[in-house]
């Protein structure tokens, strides 16, 4: 799965394990990149990179120190910059050695050794992209620039060719006067160019364009090889000072089997320039400790290489007392060890109690539950508590709410009754442990009346096939294909063809009004198509990065889609769900945001994601089992207090993240602590905010604190950043003050029972913060109550202060 999640370089010639190198350091492996070369033209050259991996995982670029020998002479030669240059057809093996270790590169030079023909699609288009001509801010914008338009990042080469060579008024090529071609004049600023200088007239890119124009600016033959694989090599490097640089290569493999060095043609960028930068020629330089991904874009592909820059300190050792509680910790610890980060210690019982209640149930522990847990002396009491909480209905209600957000259950599109029935179905499915794959199939294949078969409401939220496809991709795979509606995805592999072919699965969803005019009937109409925006032709259903299945006329296309999506072999489905669940408990996805899966946004710990997904599939897509594994991991139970090594780590789960309580949990917590629960509009008495079936049901409080309106499938709709109105609402608003003073509230109950103030103060702390006040806090509060005009108003103020403390509002 990981391999598919982000295309990893496969080919590295490897030799030797755990032998000592000349310096006495243990060597893990010795690799040369690429490990196979297949050339068909005499003016091609392929550079080589040799890398040594030490036993501690750090890597060194050893290209300059390696020895190169060929098994046979006269086929290729090595030039001064260590490029393999063809001489004659044939095969040979290159052996690269260093200090007694060796690795091989298989080399094939095809018979037709002749100068490479410059083609439009394989040469000119990549230059236009490398030079930035077809970017969104330049000629790739929807209207073009200054009368000249190119397709964005070259998604439509045919149109680009016509624009460049044929379009009257905007033609930029003059085959009879190459240097007079406006394209070359503009790009070199020989005539004024708003976009500035894009090409060096003495450089190879300019020369390639010139060659193409000299050849008559020909269009490509129909059998032109296309890029089938793109690799960035080496796939990962770990730089320990004094090592600061690593040369990367970008190698394209074409449909005819030939390879090509496209390092200088690819667009290169770093996900984190502060950690590591990359030059135009793919030299990576580490700047400060951290992790960065170098992305290369070429043709319709984007690939990344991971760069880890370690701190210069030596002497890092993994603390012996930190051991894995389950498989989750093993993967997290492995990554942390690699980064030389020590995780924070496990949190206290009281801290654990509060956050596990909030995360699993969305409510606070009661003082009774607090007392019971603190008094429990069994060593496995945390795991027992997790098991107990997972069986409570609030757990499934919480997840039903989270799914309802993704599925956009709200009454304006579904009707109020539809929203209630759909929510109830979802809640019953999750509470009944319906496997998530089955749940998703029930949604995708739903048929019948939206009141009689509530999952059919799935097809009322959006009615256009393209928007359905976008939502399905984003919600169930985390992939955002929206960009590809108009142009190829700039940072991913998704093309317009992929987009419309995926949308075609929803082209035959029929909808008719039921006898009850509020209800709709969803059915397979068996006919209808989605038209491709560019070609105007009906798109044939095709899975994302998959096959175009055989579909008999009239068959329900959704069935096939559902089978493909929920198959254990699907690379995204299980991973995307476990990632969402992980993000809920840990505050951040392994891929983050969880619904933005793309090559250029790789998982911070692919092995962990893979393991979670595999376990999830193995468990029968069981949400409770997944949540149990996460909650029982040491990683989940970490304290939020950071140490020197992990303070700056935000991606690798080395300490707990402090998060504001979600709107529903906060309102519930206030109601629970004050014993004055909110009566929510549109919900029966006693219903909690988590049970709201509609994005509008409830109260002003929920909107203020960022509950999503369920207008999009994006997780970004839920807002947890603080706002001024939130602060004012808590400080001055009716919610807290009225509930503190409520006639049936906790304070009223406690004061009426003649309980001494210090006991009341203690209960307020336990109820709100799941801890007893410190001696200092208690004496301060007692003193304050004593100085107040009356005990009751003093206690109200103390209560108010506790509920306005960050400790109450945050999950920590």
């Amino acid at each position: 799965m990981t391999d598919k999640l982000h295309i990893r370089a496969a080919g590295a010639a490897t030799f030797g394990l755990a032998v000592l190198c000349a310096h006495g350091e243990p060597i893990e492996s010795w690799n040369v990149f690429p490990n196979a070369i297949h050339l068909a033209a005499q003016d091609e050259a392929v550079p080589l990179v040799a890398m040594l991996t030490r036993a501690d995982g750090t890597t060194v670029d050893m290209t300059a120190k390696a020895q190169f020998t060929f098994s046979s002479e006269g086929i290729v030669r090595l030039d001064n910059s260590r490029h393999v240059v063809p001489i004659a057809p044939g095969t040979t093996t290159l052996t690269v050695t260093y200090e007694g270790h060796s690795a091989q590169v298989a080399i094939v030079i095809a018979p037709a050794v002749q100068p490479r023909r410059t083609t439009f699609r394989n040469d000119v288009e990549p230059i236009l992209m490398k030079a930035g001509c077809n970017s969104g801010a330049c000629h790739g914008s929807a209207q073009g620039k200054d009368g000249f338009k190119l397709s964005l990042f070259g998604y439509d080469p045919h149109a680009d060719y016509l624009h460049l060579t044929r379009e009257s008024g905007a033609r930029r090529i003059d085959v009879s006067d190459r240097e007079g071609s406006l394209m070359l004049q503009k790009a070199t600023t020989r005539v004024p160019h708003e976009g500035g200088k894009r090409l060096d007239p003495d450089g190879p890119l300019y020369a390639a364009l010139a060659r193409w124009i000299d050849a008559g600016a020909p269009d490509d033959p129909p059998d032109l090889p296309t890029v089938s694989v793109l690799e960035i090599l080496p796939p990962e490097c770990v730089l320990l000072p004094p090592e600061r640089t690593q040369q990367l290569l970008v190698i394209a493999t074409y449909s005819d089997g030939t390879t090509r060095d496209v390092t200088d043609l690819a667009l290169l960028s770093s996900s984190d320039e502060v950690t590591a930068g990359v030059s135009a020629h793919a030299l990576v330089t580490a700047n400060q400790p951290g992790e960065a991904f170098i992305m290369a874009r070429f043709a319709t592909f984007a690939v990344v290489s991971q760069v880890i820059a370690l701190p210069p300190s030596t002497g890092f050792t993994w603390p012996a007392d930190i051991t894995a509680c389950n498989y989750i910790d093993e993967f997290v610890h492995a990554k942390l060890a690699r980064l030389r980060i020590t995780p924070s210690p496990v949190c206290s019982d009281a801290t654990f109690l509060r956050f596990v209640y909030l995360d699993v149930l969305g409510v606070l522990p009661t003082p009774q539950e607090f007392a019971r847990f603190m008094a429990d002396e069994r060593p496995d009491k945390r795991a027992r508590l997790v098991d107990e909480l997972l069986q409570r209905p609030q757990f499934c209600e919480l997840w039903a709410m989270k799914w309802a957000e993704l599925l956009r259950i709200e009454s304006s599109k579904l009707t109020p009754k539809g929203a209630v029935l759909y929510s109830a179905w979802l809640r019953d499915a999750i509470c009944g442990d319906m496997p998530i794959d089955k749940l998703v199939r029930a949604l995708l294949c739903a048929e019948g009346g939206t009141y009689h078969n509530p999952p059919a409401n799935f097809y009322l939220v959006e009615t256009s096939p393209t928007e359905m496809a976008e939502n399905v991709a984003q919600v169930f795979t985390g992939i955002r294909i929206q960009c590809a509606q108009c142009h190829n995805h700039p940072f991913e592999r998704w093309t317009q063809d992929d987009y419309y072919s995926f949308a075609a699965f929803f082209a035959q969803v029929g909808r008719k009004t039921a006898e009850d005019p509020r209800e709709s009937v969803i059915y397979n109409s068996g006919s209808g198509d989605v038209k491709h925006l560019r070609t105007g032709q009906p798109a044939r259903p095709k899975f994302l990065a998959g096959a175009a299945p055989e579909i008999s006329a009239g068959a329900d296309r959704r069935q096939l889609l559902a089978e493909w999506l929920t198959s254990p072999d699907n690379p995204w489905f299980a991973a995307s769900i476990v990632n969402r669940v992980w993000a809920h408990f840990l505050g951040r996805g392994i891929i983050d945001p969880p619904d933005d899966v793309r090559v250029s946004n790789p998982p911070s710990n692919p092995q962990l994601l893979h393991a979670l997904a595999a376990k999830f599939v193995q468990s029968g897509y069981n949400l409770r089992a997944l949540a149990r594994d996460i909650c029982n991991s040491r990683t989940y139970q970490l304290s939020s207090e950071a140490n020197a090594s992990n303070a700056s780590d935000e991606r690798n789960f080395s300490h707990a993240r402090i998060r504001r309580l979600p709107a529903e949990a906060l309102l519930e917590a206030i109601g629970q602590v004050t014993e004055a629960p909110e009566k929510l509009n549109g919900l029966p008495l006693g219903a909690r905010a988590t049970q709201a079936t509609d994005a509008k049901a409830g109260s002003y409080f929920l909107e203020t604190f960022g509950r999503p309106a369920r207008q999009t499938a994006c997780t970004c709709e839920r807002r947890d950043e603080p706002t001024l109105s939130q602060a004012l609402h808590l400080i001055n608003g009716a919610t807290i003050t009225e509930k503190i003073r409520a006639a049936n509230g906790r304070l009223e109950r406690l004061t009426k029972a003649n309980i001494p103030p210090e006991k009341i103060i203690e209960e307020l702390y336990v109820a709100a913060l799941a801890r007893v006040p410190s001696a200092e806090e208690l004496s301060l509060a007692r003193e304050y109550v004593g100085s107040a005009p009356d005990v009751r108003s003093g206690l109200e103020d103390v209560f108010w202060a506790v509920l306005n403390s960050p400790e109450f509002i945050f999950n920590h």
Partner: protein
Amino acid sequence: MDSAGKLFGSLCLLGVICPAPRAGAGSPSLEVVLPRGAQRGTAATVDFSGAHLDKALSIVFYRPGVTLNHIEQVSDKHVRCTLAIAADCALGLHPLRLFTASGLTELRLFAVGDAPEITEQEPNDARSAPQLVRLPVTINGQAAGDDLDCFGFEAQPGARLAAEIEGMRLGGGIFDPVLTLYDAQGKVLATADDNALTKQDPVLSYSFASGGTYIVEVRDAAYRGERHAYYRLHLGDFPRPMAVFPPGGAPGQAVEVRWVGDSTLARETIAVPNDAGADYAIFVRTGAGTSLSPVPFRVNGLPQTIEAEPNDSPESATPCTVPGALNGIVTKPGDVDWFRFSAAKGQVFDCRVYARQLGSPLDAVVGVNKLGGATVASNDDSAGPDSAFRLTIPDDGDYALYIHDFLRAGGECYTYRVEVTNVTPALTLSTPPDQQHVCIPQGNRNAIVINAARSDFGGPLQIELSGLPAGLTASGDTMRDNVAAVPIVLTAEATAPLAASLVDVIGQCSGESKIVGHLRQSIRLTEYMNNTLCAQTVDRLPVAVTERVPFEVQIIEPRVPLARRGQMSLKVVATRGEGFKEPIQVGVLLNPPGIGSGTATIGPDQTEALLPLNANPDAALGEWPIVAIASANINGLVQVSSQLARLTIAEPFMDLALERTRVSQGSTAEVVVNIAPQHDFEGEAVLELRGLPNKLSATPAKATKETKQVVLPVAAAPDAPLGRHEGVFVQVTVMQNGEPIVFNSASALLIVDRPPAETASAQPAPVGKAERRARTPRARDIH
């Protein structure tokens, strides 16, 4: 014509019946009847509340069994009545209207039940503290918004509970009840929401294995019970079948039927009455009670075929005769039922499915194939979820009819009856939705539109109102064969007693085969986005004589025709009673085809108004009835009508064609109008150019019946707006009998140019971006 009037006129041009100012003399309005029903065999005190209910006189009941014993005026918003409900009164909903001295109210429903009645007592929101009741019982409750109502009762081991709610059916807004049965521990034993028989109103039956306290909860399905959200919850042991099979039979015969969906019932033989109407339905009686709402049952004399399973393929099709009624059940998911019959080339049949109309969950898809061959005809949903189509037999031979569910569902209640009949002419009458009744003040007139739906015949219709209250006479023209509506004017003698009755509206086509039709229409009570959620079908028109009002109106019949493409002002004169100063709104009740009309107000000190009329180029020629309606506010809106007047639509005297004209700013030009005379006329016609843009003026010209061309000079001011003006036309006025006949030409193009001198010495015009681009030097020019 003000802008509202224009809109009104343009809508009416489409041939839509013009909405009258809101009907109802005095507009008494009935908001709600409480309690929402009563037990039969009892007398009930019932409160009617609404607006303008003063001088309440009686209640108009549509069905027998409920009578008014006593009526008491509490206030102008509140009337208290004592109703006697006969012991043999039909269970279910009884439509009624309250009649006051100033008019009739909206139709409301009053329910009749079989069990002792109680009223819900709040608080009963929590299952832990329900309202305790004894069965059998009918609870009159209310669950607005997110209210929950819980009722607790004791049950013996083995006891059966039947529960049914009348909620949405009561017609009080969108209230869609859900019924849930819990045991004392809070466990859900059964829940019910919608079903095909009682629609949004749930029913359930349950047998208790053990004795104890049980709780029934009522709430709105979306926690949004609208308006009053009243309901009647019936709890007991009454039979509650969900279907009957076969779902139809012949009049006067004994039919053995099987009840489906209720284990307490099996088979019984029913006597089908001779006079069963279109809405006939059967109640079931057992020792434990009577089913609260009946199951619909089709009654007609078609030869009856019952499916013989297996009939899942054309080969195993059940033989049947056509015309005939084919009865069956789509018993399981995926089931298809087939029937086969022989027919001769050219035979034409109407095939109509009765399934959802009879309360069956089946969403039928039906078709007829040549046996072993291709489909001849098929349909889905032509009659709501039910299907209907006309079948023309292409060749002599055997045919197979298939029926299945749209979603391939099936079950024991999925009954259907396909009626295959010869094509039979049919006529149904109705009134517009906003004219559900008509009230005529003493010594005055009022009018109503009768619509006709003719199927499979044509021809003029005579409309008759039978059973009018004393002192009323109706007058109306024959409905012409090319229209589907006619106005009827009712006149009340000054001495006519105040009375209301339900009138049989009869339409007759006196052709070779005499075709008779009656009123049948659905009155919408609850709607959702202009769709019906609850409606009541009625077959008679409420007509009432009401107290005299201080104004009358009359149309001054025009002495000239209205020409096609022409306009006219129709004069309406009001006679005001002493001191009556209210403004009177006037409009046309029903526009003749192709005619548009506007509205007008007769001001406080005025006695007449002009109603603008205009005619399409293809307005229907000839003489048409025309009626004005007038309304004024007399403690609520009061409506009366004019007499039935005549309006003649005629061809214009001439056809006119305008030539395209150019005129320069600051100069003059001539618009050439070519005339093709159509009809002779006396004297001279005046031709005027209309629709000119600002800063242009034209001089009128004259023509006689011989004129072939006129020239209309047009002058453009120096700053006249440049460009193409497409709405210029000629208006012709011919005087006849002292009144004008006015009509227009089609519109033509007038172009205003710059003065010629300026064009010659023109400054360079600003250059557009496109032109700039065209002038941008090509690459080669840049060197």
